[in-house]
């Protein structure tokens, strides 16, 4: 066959072998070739790793795993099999023209070619040697000794030395590296040459552009005899054995032919005085392996025949053959020689051949495939492919909108879902258990918001510090303490929810309010009452432009708002609400009932001080805590001053009806609950001082915000109800600047704006994250800019953003 073409049938062999589970040497070579190619690619393009991992993993999952059954992974069998199937898959992926050019295929063909060559050469050599040794011209018999020495003893020694070398290597435990024996140095280059020649031939046949020759050849050379221990030299031993077999076959056939077709005379001779008996014994020894089958005279010559075939040169020298040798004796060696060559030449070779074939098969079947390159591949196949790339977001892939900025509203609208917000307030309050828990937790603890606990119990001492500074600082200071008291009641009135039993005075009042708030229905009105209360206030007393405007507008708004949402859920309310609402502004008459309540409250709470409101504040979002400075009353102050005293007995009506009075330089302080919770009493004067510094305003009233709509309502209520001496209201909102602004915060600002009027001065003062020594620390500039961006987007010209405390100068953050 023509080895230069990749035989068509060998493609079939490949195709068939692709179903194979066993390895051949050619497979190994191809395998190494592919590994090498992969590795080179990785080295050149490290980014190819991912694609490679994907390829190998899907190969494994798609084709290998189903075939492999439930073999546990990481066992040698599993590894061997999956790698073999991987190779098959890789080969199958090649173009058919490529198959022949693969180094493994080239090697296989080369091996076949070399083997064939060796067979031919061996056979011819055998014939040559045998016929040379057996040349008989009819005068001198063929020398048995030469024949035996060259063809039996030498051959046998070669085989024996090879076997012992092999055994020795085995015993010494090496032999993985270089191939043994000189022979390998002959056969190996031969195979290599043949293989590369074949490959070149084939590449030439298979259109140049199909495969760049260099790559194929490099792959071939690099992977020719790689690792794999004995497998690397077994392919060389086997052809050598085949050569030996062919040689012996040649010898035997020639000998037999010559014996059959010509008349050969065998003889032996020696210069030494050797007794034929010795020769006979040696012969018998040699013939031992077959003497049991073919005995004396047939299998080997008898003593008589040995003696008879001795050649004395003088017999031949003197042409007078006195002793004519018996021709039968001379022929008697024939079968012996054939049998000897067969036994000592052919058989060992056959054994070695078979042995090496078996050994190769065993070794191939036991290859561990654990060297690191294989390991990497195996790991790629077994490792689940892990991807964590996003799915690309939503269709269209457009970015979502930024944080929503609420639109400006000229009028105050209740929160969207909270059209019935006030109504909801009752459940809401009850649904923030932590507000209560906070207080409770705090009381034992030291570190938390202490406002609540001490004040109610010890009212008097606490108040002065809080209130005093602002009072003194600004102008008015008619009657700080006395005035306070009266104001307090007012604040107390506000809470629909009630400070619990802690305050005795409040308790009584508390009794009825909780009742009212028990059901939503009842609660709602109660809250609304506040509103109604507020509304009347602005109108009569201060009646600045903004104040009335706000409420006026507010009415229409609330109605539409609630409708859409509530329509579905609570139609009944929707109806009731509108009616109520309009009533509030228009008819101060309606609220009268409530004011009374309020009156009662002040009376009750007179005893308690500012702190009273705080208590409720903590518990329920609903309650506005109005820490009132005594200052509010610039003019009215005197009139009210007496009231407080009287308040206890009978609160004058005017007080409840009116909101807090705000002096021209006073403002409403809205404190976020987060800050309020941690402020200690001694912090409050400081806070007011800071505000004074920032804005020049005194604090007329304080409310908390940030824990639910009800609380917001209350706070805004104070604003709207407030008696503003110098019209545009002044509001300071203190928020925690360490948290980024969220829509909720901005929405509250909008609501505040709506409630306060378009021109109202609103200042947003931010505080940093409180620490132990400083509960009103400066905020980080970074957070400030964050807020600034958002506030800027609101585009509210009367809204001022400030840091409550000036930033650290050393700018450590």
């Amino acid at each position, binding site marked *: 066959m023509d080895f230069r073409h990749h035989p068509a049938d060998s493609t079939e062999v490949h195709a068939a072998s692709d179903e194979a589970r066993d390895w051949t040497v050619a497979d190994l070579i191809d395998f190494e070739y592919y590994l090498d190619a992969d590795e080179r690619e990785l080295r050149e393009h490290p980014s190819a790793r991912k694609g490679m991992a994907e390829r190998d993993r899907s190969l494994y999952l798609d084709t290998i795993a189903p075939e492999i059954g439930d073999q546990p992974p990481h066992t040698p069998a599993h590894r061997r099999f999956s790698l073999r199937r991987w190779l098959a898959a890789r080969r199958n992926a090649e173009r058919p023209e490529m198959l022949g050019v693969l180094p493994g295929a080239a090697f296989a063909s080369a091996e076949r070619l070399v083997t064939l060559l060796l067979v031919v050469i061996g056979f011819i050599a055998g014939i040559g040697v045998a016929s040379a040794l057996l040349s008989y011209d009819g005068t001198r018999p063929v020398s048995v000794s030469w024949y035996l020495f060259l063809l039996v003893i030498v051959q046998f020694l070669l085989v024996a030395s090879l076997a012992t070398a092999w055994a020795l290597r085995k015993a010494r435990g090496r032999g993985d590296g270089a191939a043994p024996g000189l022979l390998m140095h002959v056969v190996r280059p031969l195979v290599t040459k043949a293989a590369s020649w074949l490959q070149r031939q084939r590449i030439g046949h298979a259109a140049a552009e199909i495969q760049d020759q260099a790559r194929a050849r490099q792959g071939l050379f690099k992977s020719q005899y790689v690792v794999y221990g004995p497998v690397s030299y077994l392919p060389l031993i086997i052809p050598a054995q085949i050569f030996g077999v062919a040689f012996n076959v040649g010898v035997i056939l020639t000998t037999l032919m010559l014996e059959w077709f010509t008349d050969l005379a065998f003889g032996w001779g020696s210069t030494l005085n050797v007794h034929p008996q010795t020769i006979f014994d040696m012969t018998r020894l040699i013939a031992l392996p077959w003497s049991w089958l073919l005995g004396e005279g047939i299998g080997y010559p008898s003593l008589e025949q040995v003696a008879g075939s001795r050649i004395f040169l003088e017999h031949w020298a003197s042409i007078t053959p006195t002793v004519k040798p018996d021709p039968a004796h001379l022929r008697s060696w024939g079968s012996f020689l054939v049998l000897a060559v067969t036994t000592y030449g052919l058989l060992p070779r056959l054994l070695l051949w078979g042995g090496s074939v078996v050994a190769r098969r065993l070794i191939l079947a036991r290859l561990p495939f654990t060297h690191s390159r294989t390991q990497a591949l195996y790991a790629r196949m077994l490792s689940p492919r892990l991807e964590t790339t996003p799915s690309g977001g939503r269709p269209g892939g457009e970015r*979502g909108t930024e944080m929503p900025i609420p639109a400006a509203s000229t009028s105050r609208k209740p929160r*969207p879902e909270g059209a019935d917000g006030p109504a909801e307030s009752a459940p809401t309050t009850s649904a923030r258990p932590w507000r209560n828990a906070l207080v409770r937790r705090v009381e034992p603890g030291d570190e938390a918001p202490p406002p609540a606990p001490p004040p109610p119990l010890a009212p008097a001492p606490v108040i002065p510090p809080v209130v005093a500074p602002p009072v003194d600082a600004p102008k008015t200071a008619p009657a700080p303490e006395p005035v306070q008291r009266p104001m307090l009641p007012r604040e107390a009135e506000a809470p629909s929810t009630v400070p619990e039993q802690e305050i005795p005075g409040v308790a009584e009042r508390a009794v009825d309010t909780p009742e009212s708030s028990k059901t939503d229905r009842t609660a709602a009105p109660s809250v609304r009452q506040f509103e109604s209360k507020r509304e009347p206030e602005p109108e009569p007393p201060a009646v600045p432009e903004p104040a009335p405007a706000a409420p006026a507008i507010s009415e229409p708004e609330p109605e539409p708002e609630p409708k859409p949402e509530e329509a579905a859920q609570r139609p009944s309310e929707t109806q009731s609400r509108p009616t109520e609402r309009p009533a509030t502004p228009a008819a101060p008459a309606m609220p009268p009932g409530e004011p009374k309540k309020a009156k009662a409250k002040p009376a009750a709470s007179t005893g308690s001080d500012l702190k009273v409101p705080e208590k409720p504040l903590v518990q329920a979002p609903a309650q506005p805590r109005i820490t009132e400075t005594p200052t509010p009353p610039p003019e009215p102050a005197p009139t009210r001053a007496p009231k407080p005293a009287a308040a206890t007995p009978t609160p004058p009506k005017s007080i409840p009806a009116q909101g807090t009075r705000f002096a021209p330089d006073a403002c409403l302080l809205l404190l976020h609950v987060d800050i309020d919770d941690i402020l200690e009493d001694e912090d409050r004067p400081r806070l007011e001082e800071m505000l004074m510094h920032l804005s020049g305003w005194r604090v007329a009233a304080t409310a908390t915000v940030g824990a*639910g709509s009800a609380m917001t309502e209350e706070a805004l209520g104070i604003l709207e109800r407030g008696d503003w001496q110098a019209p545009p209201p002044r509001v300071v909102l203190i928020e925690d600047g360490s948290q*980024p602004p969220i829509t909720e915060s901005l929405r509250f600002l909008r609501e505040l704006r709506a409630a306060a009027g378009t021109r109202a001065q609103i200042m947003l003062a931010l505080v940093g994250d*409180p620490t132990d020594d400083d509960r009103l620390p400066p905020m980080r500039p970074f957070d400030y800019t964050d807020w600034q961006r958002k506030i800027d987007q609101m585009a509210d010209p009367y809204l001022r953003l400030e840091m409550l405390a000036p930033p650290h100068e050393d700018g450590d953050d």
Partner: protein
Amino acid sequence: MSGKIPRLAIMGHPNAGKSSVVATLTENDLIQIDKRAGTTTESNVYPVIIDGRPVIEFIDTPGFQNPNAILEWFQAQSGKRELARAFVAAHRADPLFTHDCELLEPVAEGAAIILVVDGSKRIKEKDRVEIELLRLTARPRMAILNNLTNNTRYMTQWRDALCKAFNSVRDFNAHRATYGERVRLLQALKSIDQRWEPLVEEAIHAFEHDWNRRTDQAVTTILDLLKEALTYKASKTVKESKLVFESGRERVKEEVMRAFEDGLRQLETKAQEQIRANFRHHVWHMPPDSILGKDLLSEEVNQALGLSKRQLALVGMAAGAASGATIDLSTAGHTFGAGALIGAATGGVLGFMGSKALAKLNIERASGTQRFTVGPVHNPRFPFVLLDRIVLYSARAMNWSHGRQAAEEDAPDKVPEKEIRRAGFTEELPAAQQRDLARFFNAARKGKSEREEECRAIIRDILHGLAVSEIDSRADL
């Protein structure tokens, strides 16, 4: 199918570190993270896909914008069962609630919740509101205390607050989380919902597999780097006419030396890039005083890494003894062990003396030209330094969490990196392993491979120890 896989919505208020957590968990540093609030504006799904099949989905959500409103709405609707869905349905159209709808939508569709809170800060009203409203959604939920600072005083408070409403509460520093911590967090996901166990298990398994594969890959890269660096040579052929003056000769020497050094640096950089890609890092901050930022051949690096002189001498002795022993063998034992003694002596001396020069300069003369060749490196210390440095780099790549891109390295009291120990990794290896390494280096210089598998195992052990934090990663080095 996709209905059954665990879907986890990562929730929290803006800037709580949700995206960092997702980035770290999924090893994806391409997720947009910014220290400014509101970077995430829509819910992004980050699936963990194993063999093309999604196994877990992490959903990064925008922060709560109206927690109070949501809570109040929920409370008002307390009769309903699918609160989240109802809320989304009711507020879809309201622009003010886009983010809230966006973030509640996955929950409405059945995703479990992972609430991320900043454990370094006090519990605020908003936090309580969020906790409560998430409780009302009645989904399986877990809380992550993402504490990026040293401040642990609020942690117990947080725990108390969270435990009441969450199935499981875990600490997790998204900026420092190592592979081991990530896996532990994933393990905890199993406890949220038992039905997920198999899938989560599979994901964890895949993560582990993937990690081992990457570690092996890194080891290969490191070994390749060592082999390449130890055989690296730089040469330059110059005409003799240019070498008439001593200054010209000096200049050429310098040039060759520089080329040689640059070549080594490039080799290192290439290996670093491979390792970095291997561990999927795109974004990367290096502290300015890191040893990694220093020049490979600077004295500082040389001081900080590698073996101590004593160790080097011992190791050099051992490696020398090996070569002496081979001489012994080749001379058929005629020297009766004297070869081993001589070898040991020279090896030891080289260990001391050789620490000066990096490599020798060879000049070959040919007709009219001279060929200046530098290399390969024969300084016995160098390979240890190089190995230490690349391991240090790997440690950083492995333990640099993917959510850390926005970390404010100068933020006040962030978790400090561990105490600095000016010592390399190889210094702490047992002497036998150091000897193995030395032998490997010696063989590599000659282009042979000896003890490669042992060294592979040694390096793999180091990397593995780094990943599970058994070995200090010397993050500051």
